[in-house]
């Protein structure tokens, strides 16, 4: 009787919540669907093989999404700037490599699907050990301690043979013969789907974590740690828990790295990997949960494609990063969020024209900048490597004055035009936001 009552009252509520949840979560489901489908778009039906490049890139995106989100648990949600996040990623990877090797030897019949959990525990335990020191401090002191820890572990990884394998790193073989579904995991597409599954799980868990009291308190300690203290919470404990959990997810990402590449070297714990996390998270946007996801996708795409085309991918990444820091501290997600009020008021259409007028000068400046950077690059590095700069079969000689003049003209002229267009765009933006704010401006 009472059960029946409970049923009738509970069901509609649950149904409404799930239904509403699904409606609100459709971007995530769409992303998941895209992640599942994309490898098949590049499937070569004549040979029956997947594109190795695309699968490798998508796998990289998957693990970097987890890595960036785990970094945002510190940076965005707890206001902790870490310069050694790769340590948690890499240690998770090393632990996984050892466990997979043991599993292959038959000593530990662990299904390969569950090894990311092992990496997570490895990352978690390292975060507990290192976080005990690091989270005693906040702000700049925390940043400096993490920088020190990062350098320390990198030096250790190069020094100790048994656990880290020194400079050569640790290699393993993911075909352990233990699987929940009877898969061999010889093909990288199988590993890719494992990554998709774990990325989805980790994303859901991290999203749910932001809604727990811990996640809320992390926000509170970020915004005003003194008031959080007055309320009765110890900010240090909050920082510690947040750091440890962030280590768990970074460890999962590291484990997926190990499964994909079957080798872990000191690169996984070193500073460039930590900088990568920072770059992805900040460019994507720290203020929004989905921000780091956007950043990770964008950066890996840039990294894979631009680094194929050009030597100077880091210059582009650096300039993009500086532009974001200077003009859009909220990141890409922050930029999108700025349009929220205008979109809700139904005035977004009025901005289409001004946006379109920005495109041409922006492209000119971009072209000029890329040309200048590439000319520079081919003058020294390219020449040393014996390469020459060709665009659609037309060779461009970087020692001549003409291409330089074109680049400078594009940069200068495009820059002036862009500046003017930006001014007009700002005026249009101001008009639209005034209309929204004005009483009666909203129907």
């Amino acid at each position, binding site marked *: 009787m009472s059960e029946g009552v409970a049923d009738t009252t509970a069901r509609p509520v649950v149904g409404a919540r799930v239904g509403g949840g699904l409606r609100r979560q459709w971007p995530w489901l769409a992303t998941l669907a895209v992640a599942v489908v994309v490898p098949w778009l590049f499937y070569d039906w004549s040979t029956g093989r997947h594109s190795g490049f695309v699968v490798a890139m998508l796998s990289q995106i998957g693990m970097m999404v987890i890595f960036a989100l785990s970094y945002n648990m510190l940076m965005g949600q707890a206001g902790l*700037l870490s310069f050694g996040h790769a340590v948690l990623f890499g240690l998770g990877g090393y632990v996984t490599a050892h466990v997979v090797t043991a599993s292959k030897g038959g000593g530990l019949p662990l299904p390969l699907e569950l090894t990311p959990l092992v990496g997570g525990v490895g990352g978690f335990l390292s975060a507990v050990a290192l976080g005990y*020191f690091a989270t*005693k*401090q906040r*702000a*700049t*002191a925390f*940043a*400096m*301690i993490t*920088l*020190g*820890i990062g*350098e*320390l572990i990198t*030096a*250790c990884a190069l*020094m*100790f*043979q*048994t656990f880290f394998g020194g400079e050569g790193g640790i290699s393993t073989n993911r075909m352990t013969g233990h699987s929940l579904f009877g898969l061999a995991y010889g093909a990288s597409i199988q590993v890719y789907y494992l990554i998709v599954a774990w990325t989805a799980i980790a994303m859901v868990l991290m999203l749910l974590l932001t809604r727990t009291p811990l996640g809320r308190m992390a926000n509170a300690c970020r915004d005003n740690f003194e008031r959080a203290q007055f309320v009765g919470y110890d900010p240090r404990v909050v920082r510690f828990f947040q750091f440890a959990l962030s280590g768990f997810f970074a460890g999962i990402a590291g484990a997926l790295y190990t499964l994909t590449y079957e080798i872990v070297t000191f690169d996984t714990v070193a*500073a460039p990997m930590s*900088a990568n996390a*920072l770059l992805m998270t*900040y460019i994507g946007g720290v203020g929004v949960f989905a921000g780091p996801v956007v950043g990770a996708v964008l950066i890996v795409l840039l990294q894979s494609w631009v680094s194929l085309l050009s030597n*100077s991918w*880091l*210059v582009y*990444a*650096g*300039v993009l*990063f*500086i532009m974001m*820091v*200077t003009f859009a*501290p909220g990141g890409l997600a922050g930029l999108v969020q700025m349009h929220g009020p205008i979109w809700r008021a139904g005035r977004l259409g009025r901005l289409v024209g001004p946006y379109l007028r920005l495109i041409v000068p922006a492209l000119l400046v971009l072209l000029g900048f890329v040309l200048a*950077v590439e000319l*520079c*690059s081919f*003058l*020294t*590095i390219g020449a*040393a490597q014996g390469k020459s700069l060709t665009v659609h079969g037309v060779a461009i000689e970087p020692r001549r004055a003409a291409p330089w003049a074109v680049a400078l003209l594009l940069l200068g002229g495009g820059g002036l035009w862009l500046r003017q267009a930006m001014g007009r765009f700002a005026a249009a933006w101001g008009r639209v936001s005034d209309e929204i704010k004005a009483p009666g401006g909203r129907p």
Partner: protein
Amino acid sequence: MEVLLVSLLNGLVYGMLLFMLASGLTLIFSMMGVLNFAHASMYMLGAYFAYSVSRLIGFWPALVVAPLLCGALGAVIEMYALRRVHRNGHIAELLFTVGLAFIIEKTVQMAWGLLPVPYRVPPVLDRALFHIYGSNFHAYRAFMLLVSVAMFAAIWLLLTRTRIGLVIQAALTHPEMVGALGHNVPRVFTIVFAGGSLLAGLAGVIGGNYLVTEPSMAATMGPIVFVVVVFGGLGSLAGCFIASLIMGLVQTFAVVLDVSFADLLARLGVTVTSSTPLAEILTIPLPRVGALLPYLMLILVLLVKPRGLMGTRDT
């Protein structure tokens, strides 16, 4: 004994080089709150500028020109970029300098190539100055010591004997109050940033040919300079000086003293074999651990004294 004396001198030279870098960073960090990740990049640029300039007009003019170029670049960065980013908060400023360090490193690679450039000690100084216990003391080291001591004296006089120096000192601890008294604090910031960059450039000029001038020199020097600044404490040039010397001596002696925990235990009558637990850690010789020591010291000092050795403010 001879090892001790020679290492002491070498450690002093290295420590003074570190101080030349760290003093500028400490001033910038204390006054503006900006942890300048591009500071070591200025050091690298100083070395590369000096290389190019010295090929054109010789080493001695380069000693003056290259630091001035770095100082001018620092002023431009502060006035036209950092000031704008300042509005977005300290984290944004810090990240801006991280991005700047990226770009400078790649620009150097594009302009001068990936390999080390042959930036050499001038022939006049490329000889032994004197011999102690059979080992040479290189004249260039004495020159480095001379330059850094002269620079130390110049900074000290500037900070204690001039009006701008007094304003800078006051702004180190109470920037808001200095602004309230009617001093142009943004201009003081520009001066300090340019001056810090100039010092870093100078360190690059005299350090670049002593060590190696290569695109990764900023990345190897940067973290160590940070360690020195944080170790010495915010807002304290004296702390920075002591920390630089400690770091220079520690790193030099770590290279020279070939001992390990196993040797220490052997004296106590315990022999370490490959089957002993933690044998790998115990038998590792000190020179290989040398690179770790600065970071160990950093972590320890921040845990025990979060303000650093002689810091006057929280980091």
